[in-house]
């Protein structure tokens, strides 16, 4: 065996608290370590060249890269091995940054820890065997869950790319919340027009099937070959698809959760959406006094919503503007923490609104007291440090976004994760905002965090493009980390078969041993841990790998 160890400085990040030089020297003494080097950025092109050159020069058959967490650069380093005709699964990544240099300050201790971590990689990798990457056929069809703007744009795009699309909406009508908006920022177009245009176009496409008032009740299968069970008004329907765009939007924050807002108890206290819906029906005096309250249900630790809802400042400004436009003699005062007029043109709009006479007061509202003459607001002006008490004829609440009601349910159907606020968790907040942990399932729009209409459209399309990129070839590679049976060791006790969640294990009555359905195996390794003689083992995580990793971590080897 010829092992190459490459230890990354990651610039400052690792080198700062780990003595990388000492490590690279240390590992040179191991008998089957042929190369042991440290390098400023192993991921950079010269760093990669160093690895490929070493493979070529020394005929390495194990490559250990001690650098950042394995989730980063995974494919990159595998490709290097592929390029040199070394099976990419003979690569071992050791995280000495996220799990070592960044979590400890002491150089000695960190260096020792890094040594053990690399040692465990070294001993673990010694038991690696080449694995095969298999191709599977994928269906060039997609399920789009949620018919709001992001779902509509995703469905439209996919359909135009020639994919069969199934669009599922739980409501009776497509369009989501946008349909109700009178004027969408920044285009100022009526929301209904935007969604109706999309809906019309979508309905005219032959390869799109739209299910309204439909619930997704079951979802199984694997990448490229998923099966979704839909509960449609006309009965249950199963569809086979290659992948999914989940765009189930958001739930408007219900101000009723905060009883002190008196929402729902007094008709003079409304949300921005109520205001839009009411239109001219508002019974307001000639010169109405209107208060607009920002950050309702956002940035509010008390109710466990620390996040900013991103859209409500603009909504608040629009509400203020609407009142001002309708009642030019009105007194409009906006109470805010920070005015986050960040969207395109938002800042200018904020300025214009101020110029139109809307007052902005940085304040904490303490109390809302409805009385016959008006709604009394008591609070503290945080700029002047004074308390105030003012009466209004109308209080408009700019409510934030809550995660969709079904986020938990959907997350468990799709086996994707939620973030702490119960929005969907993206694979990487910046670089992979549409991907989830599950291959072929993408998220779009506000279900991964508050977004405005423009951003939701962006997301829908980008997410759909990602999915298309995965499916357009008609085939894909499957993960090789699946279970395998050693029939000579198998006692045929069928414990694994009983435990297997994916039902991927089948019993051969003739030979009295089990076998694995490769396409169905999810690679969790439960069977491996269940089998007392480890006759079934999970490739890449076989007992000997983990056993030796344990020993090496404890330096007991």
């Amino acid at each position, binding site marked *: 065996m010829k092992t190459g160890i490459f230890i990354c400085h*990651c*610039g*400052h*990040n690792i080198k700062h608290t780990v003595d990388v030089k000492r490590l690279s020297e240390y590992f040179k003494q191991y008998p089957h370590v042929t190369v042991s080097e440290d390098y*400023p*950025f192993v*991921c950079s*092109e*010269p760093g990669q060249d160093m690895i490929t050159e070493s493979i070529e020069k020394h005929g390495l058959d194990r490559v250990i890269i001690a650098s*950042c967490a394995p989730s*980063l*650069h995974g494919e*990159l380093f595998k*490709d290097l091995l592929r390029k040199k005709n070394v099976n990419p699964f003979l690569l071992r990544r050791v995280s000495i940054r996220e799990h070592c240099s960044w979590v400890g300050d002491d150089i000695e201790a960190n260096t020792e820890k890094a040594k053990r971590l690399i040692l465990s990689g070294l001993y673990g990798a010694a038991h690696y065997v080449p694995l095969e990457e298999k191709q599977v056929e994928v269906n060039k069809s997609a399920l789009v869950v949620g018919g709001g703007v992001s779902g509509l744009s995703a469905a439209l*795009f996919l359909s*135009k*790319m*020639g994919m069969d699309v199934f669009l599922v909406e739980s409501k009776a009508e497509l369009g989501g919340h946008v349909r109700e908006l009178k004027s969408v920022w*920044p*285009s*100022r*177009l009526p929301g209904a027009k*935007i969604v109706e245009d999309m809906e019309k176009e979508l309905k005219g496409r032959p390869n799109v099937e739209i299910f309204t008032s439909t619930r997704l009740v079951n979802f199984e299968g694997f990448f490229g070959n998923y099966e979704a069970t839909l509960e449609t008004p006309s009965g249950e329907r199963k569809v086979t698809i290659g992948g999914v765009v989940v765009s189930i939007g958001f739930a408007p924050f219900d101000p009723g959760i905060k009883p002190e807002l008196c929402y729902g108890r007094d008709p003079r206290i409304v949300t921005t959406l109520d205001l839009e819906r009411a239109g001219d029906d508002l019974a307001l005096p000639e010169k109405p006094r209107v208060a607009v309250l920002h950050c309702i249900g956002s*940035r509010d630790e008390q109710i466990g919503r*620390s*996040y*900013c809802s*991103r859209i409500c400042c603009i909504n608040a400004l629009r509400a203020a503007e609407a009142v001002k436009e309708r009642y030019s003699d009105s007194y409009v005062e906006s109470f*805010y923490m*920070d005015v*986050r*007029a*960040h969207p*395109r*043109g938002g*800042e*200018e709009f904020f*300025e214009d609104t101020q110029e139109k006479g809307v007052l902005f007061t*940085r304040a904490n509202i303490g109390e809302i007291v409805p009385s016959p003459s008006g709604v009394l607001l008591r609070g503290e002006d945080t*700029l002047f*440090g004074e308390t105030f008490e003012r009466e209004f004829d109308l209080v408009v609440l700019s409510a934030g976004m809550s995660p969709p009601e079904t986020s938990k349910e959907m997350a468990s159907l799709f086996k994707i994760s939620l973030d702490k606020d119960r929005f969907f968790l993206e694979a*990487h*907040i*910046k670089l992979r*905002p549409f991907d989830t942990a599950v291959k072929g399932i993408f998220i779009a729009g506000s279900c*991964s965090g*508050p977004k405005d209409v*423009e*951003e939701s*459209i*962006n*997301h829908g*399309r*980008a997410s759909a*493009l*990602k999915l*298309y*990129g995965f499916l*357009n*070839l008609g085939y894909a590679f499957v993960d090789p980390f699946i279970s395998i049976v050693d029939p000579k060791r198998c006692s045929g006790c069928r414990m694994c078969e009983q435990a297997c969640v994916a039902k991927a294990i089948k019993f051969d009555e003739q030979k009295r041993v089990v076998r694995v359905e490769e396409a169905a195996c999810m690679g969790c390794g439960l069977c491996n841990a269940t089998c007392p003689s480890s006759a079934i083992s999970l490739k890449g995580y076989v007992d000997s790998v983990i056993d030796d990793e344990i020993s090496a971590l404890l330096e007991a080897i």
Partner: protein
Amino acid sequence: MDERERQVLVVGGGIGGITAALELASCGINVTMLEEGPSIGGRMIQLDKTFPTLDCSTCTLSPKMVEVALQPKIDLLSWAKPVAVAKKGRGFSVTILKKSRFVDMKKCTACGVCSEGCPVVMKSEFNMGTGPRKAVYIPFPQAIPNKASIDKREERLCNAACMDACPVGTNVPGYLKHISEGRFADAYRLIRATNPFPSVCGRVCYAPCERVCNRGEFDEPLAVRDLKRFAVDSFDIACLEAPKVQRTGRKVAVIGAGPAGLACAHDLALEGHDVTVYEALPEPGGMLRFAIPEYRLPKEELKKEIDYIRKLGVDIRCGAEAGSAAAAGEIRGSHDAVFVATGAPKGLPLGVDGEDLPGIVDGIRFLRGVNSGEHASPGRQVAVIGGGNTAVDCARTAKRLGSDSVRLVYRRTREEMPAAAEEVEALLHEGIEIDFLAAPVRFEGVGGKVAKMECVRMELGEPDESGRRRPVPKAGSEFTVPVDCVITALGQAVETSFLSSIGVALGKGGVIAIDPATGATNVEGVFAGGDVVTGPAYVIDAIAAGKKAARSISAYLRGEVPAGEARRGEPQKLSAEMHSALTGRIAHERRIAMPEEPVGERVGDFREVGLGYSPDAAMAEAGRCLAGKVEGCIECGECERRCEVKAIDYRMKDEIVEMDFDGIVLAPGFDLYDPTEKRELGYGTLPGVITGIEFERICSVTGPTGGDILLNGRQPKRFYFIQCVGSRDRQSGARFCSRVCCMYTAKHASIVRDRIKDAEIYVSYIDVRAYGKGYEEFYKTTQENGTFYIRGIPGEVVKGKDCLVVRVEDMLSGELREIEADLVILATGVRPHKGIEDLCGMMSLERDEYGFIKVDAIAPSKTNVEGIFVCGMGSGPKDVPDTVASGGEAASRCMEYVSEGSTS
């Protein structure tokens, strides 16, 4: 959809462009990506960390960049931009300018050797000018493509004839550039790279470079030699470490420790050979040691150079009898190769009567005596015969030894004198007369010692074979001069008879016959060079011969046939056009003379005459060099010389190509607001006031300080961040919110907190717009970690005692505060990229009031031109997640467009 390959152009290699290109490629589209600069990565790669997860920007972006490089469907063109775009059917015909990189991308290995040697230091764009880079450079370690490029902005103003004139090809423009910019040690190292005797050549070189210097065509040539001496003087050679080299185990003998022999030994030692130098005299240095007088070349200086050669491992054996036939045979037998550089030690006789009288000495012998410590005066009335440097040295030496009168007798005129003009000048200066057109014909002695010298007047006749006019005695013009000492310095001869024992063929006058290209003699493994081959010549020629032989010997020892180096070009004069172009441009500047010891003082002893430049004078003089006056690459050739794979190509030309595309995605990126106009904030006037992106580079591990936050070498403790500089600000013409500054400031604050535990951090803000996913939490954490947020933008930043003082009205408390800070960081807002105007012009794109590309209200990547899409900051401020999303959106729109095109 038909199978025709669809082609999309992506302009801009930032995160937006990268996302769009990768997405399109994954959908099977061929992408051509244009990047204006040397590497993709855009602004994001300049960032140290990205909010809100604080992960390292390099770590997250670098893999994407590598993916671009690996993705077979993406053709990445760096240094390229569109120059013309025409609609062609549904698609576009685009004319692309590929600027020349001057480095062959196929050959370059990104080893960085070129940058190490480059004498041109420029501000690094990647580091926002907070750090340097060279004219040949790779902008940052993770650059894609990871290839060097040369920043050549204009053609060199002169032909650098100096380099062509120099026998060792010294990089004159290079070291002058270093000196003119104050990098004296770098200048020394550059000189040393081709010359093992900088301090010798800085003093006694006849400076062929100066003779051809093109500056001389305008006013006066550069004082190249004196500047070299300046560089030498400002460097302590004792600090020079011997480089570690792989030993070859091959043994080479060098016979003669003069400049040729030692230069050869020096270069051979650097190649890892074991070198032994055999020298007959008690000390090494040859003529440098024993012929050149102390006042021109202090022995101490020479010793330092030779000590360094010893430090390289060269064994110098003085007093060794190498000049005998037996010794030659033995040395040849016990070494793998031999270099003969025994010089021309024999003085030539005059061939006149009375020449053997006591009191008449050979010049070389005289100088050797004096240089060996014999300081007795040779006589009261001294005549020196000859017109070469030796004659001049003898005369000036005699003067210093206390002779009452010293006169030089030379048979031609001053014009023909082979001695260096400045030496003759100095000689006359020191009160020594010269009898031109005179020659001794007879010496008479009194009391067995020379007392009279009879001379004859000469006139110049027909030119001889050397091209000089032959002096012819004028009949009847004899005259007598009373002398008590005559020093003859008529030239030297070689002593090579001992070489017959090993069969070396000799030429006319006993000189060794060699292959002029390689220095090889007719005997295998025996090489020769220096005066023993050429007859008496200049130091620098001897050094060049030694170096040439070292190259040949190394090749020979590697088993290769020594190949002669192609001769450098002949020194070129300026062409008429160049001359006239420069006339207006170059102001008349006289050469700055190196100060000398006053005559009265110096003739009394052997103190060194030249005093050397002051740093200011040296910088000013070096600044006169025409080559160094251009911005960027000065084409000094240093990179070319160093590059092992021969990737440098100065002759590369810009290319224009025309390509057809089905769709275009623009990702032009952005610039940052230049806060110089905000005088009250002190940017550009107060040290310590910097912009956010500059701070970013200072924090970055790939930045100039390697990630340590330092201000003038000290760690600042008090930080003041000012938000909304150039955003939400009518005065600066930007009413818009730049969307990133609030968060990058919070990020900076948390980086500071992470690195400097006891830092005081203030942030001035109007509104904190932490609107993205995880942003609010990040802002909260930043506050909790001890960052003081002050609502209100400071009125001014002024200089305080050892610090800056920020005057701000805290709108929350209403009080006017004065806060001391070491570093004030301005969170400057976003501006459209400067190239966006041209881009929009050639593509007929509309722009908004701020200059960003105008886009559709609901399809934020659609421009007014069908088929052209924009993503990222091109259409207005966006943070990284939004840019990635917009990259995806633009790609999807473009995908849709090009697909429709292929179906219809």
